[in-house]
């Protein structure tokens, strides 16, 4: 079981690298936001995986629960920001 979880975790990290490319490349801020949201959701999974590898999942599941609850705050905050600012690529100052 443990070796399977290790392989799955490493695969997950490898796939997260692809998402990282989108974070670095993404032409607009929202593309980056989408990719970071995906990374945040996958962090929950990786936390549970490392809990299984440590053999003490009952301790790690609380952290994952906290992540599951808090993960979408950043997206909503960013959405409110753009709702009030209404522009993606501002150059220079807006004042």
């Amino acid at each position: 079981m443990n070796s399977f979880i290790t392989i799955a975790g490493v695969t997950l990290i490898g796939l997260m690298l692809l998402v990282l490319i989108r974070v670095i490349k993404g032409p607009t801020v929202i593309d980056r936001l989408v990719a970071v949201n995906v990374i945040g959701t996958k962090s929950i999974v990786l936390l549970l995986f490392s809990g299984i590898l440590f053999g003490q999942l009952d301790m790690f599941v609380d952290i994952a629960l906290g992540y599951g609850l808090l993960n979408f705050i950043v997206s909503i905050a960013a959405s409110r920001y753009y709702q009030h600012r209404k522009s993606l690529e501002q150059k220079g100052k807006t004042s």
Partner: protein
Amino acid sequence: MADLPIWHYDTLFLTLALLFGITALAMQNLMGAAIVFGAYSFLMCLIWTTMGAVDVAFTEAAVGAGVSTVFIFATIYNTGVSATPNSPRIAFKIFAGLIAFGTGAFLLSALPDFPDWGDPKSPVNSTIAPYYIANSITDAHVPNIVTTVLADYRGFDTLLETTVVFIACIAIYSILRIDNAKSKVTEPDIITSPPAYDPTDSLIIRQASRIMVPFMQLFALYVIAHGHYSPGGGFQGGVILGASIILLSISFDLKHVLQQWTEKKIMILTALGVLIYAMVGLACILMDGVYLDYAALDSVLPGDEAYARSHGILLVEIGVGITVMFSMIGIYINLASNGRFDRGL
């Protein structure tokens, strides 16, 4: 971690985190930099987990996902600068790079003297830490050693750290807070000031946060109360409680939150947490003990001396939770409303 040496698994995360950190700093757009900094914080949380530091990982999860990125957003929102102008200071940048490189090389020259990563016999692991590990159960009946060390063995340390959070909150009030009536500073350039209930606001976001907020607060209370037996404690629970109120004020409106949590209430409660902590210490002196030695509270609290320590730790954690929660809310409201306490992000 099974039969792998530590570094096989962690080097991947470390390299990734390094990439994210450099990306966050290289980003021209400030919103982009803040978002990438959030992702960096996720990876740091994973790194703490793989090194076995669950409480630190929990704190980083709550802080990184809940508050720190939102603080940066609030600042950018109030100042309206979302892209950095290119400043042509190449010579100075190279000079700073040389300084940083030199310092780094100087620090790395000490590399051979450091103990190996994961060596159980290294100096830091063989002085006082074994005592904590061996005696936590007999002294306080608390399986989570981090909680025992945090609130009991090193209680002074935590008291002063809580005070630092409190002082930081006061500092922000004194820097930013403007009394609306006496204000002489001109209005900041907020383009659209939304009414309390903008009809174009999304109903979905509101309903979702209406569902999530009670669960967050329940979970935070569970984290504070169950911190003796699982990762958690006052700091984590306080940050999650603060984040729940921040979520309310983002998804509804700042006014909506300020109707319930007025400025006065927030200030009093911020101070109340530190007061609870200090008063528990004073109570120990009054019961013929040493400051913050909860065993002296034996006659008031149920159980024997070890259980008295355990309950004393719980009292202290509640104080920490209250201070951290309201500090986070106070800092957020100040940053988001530019010290005016009327409207915000």
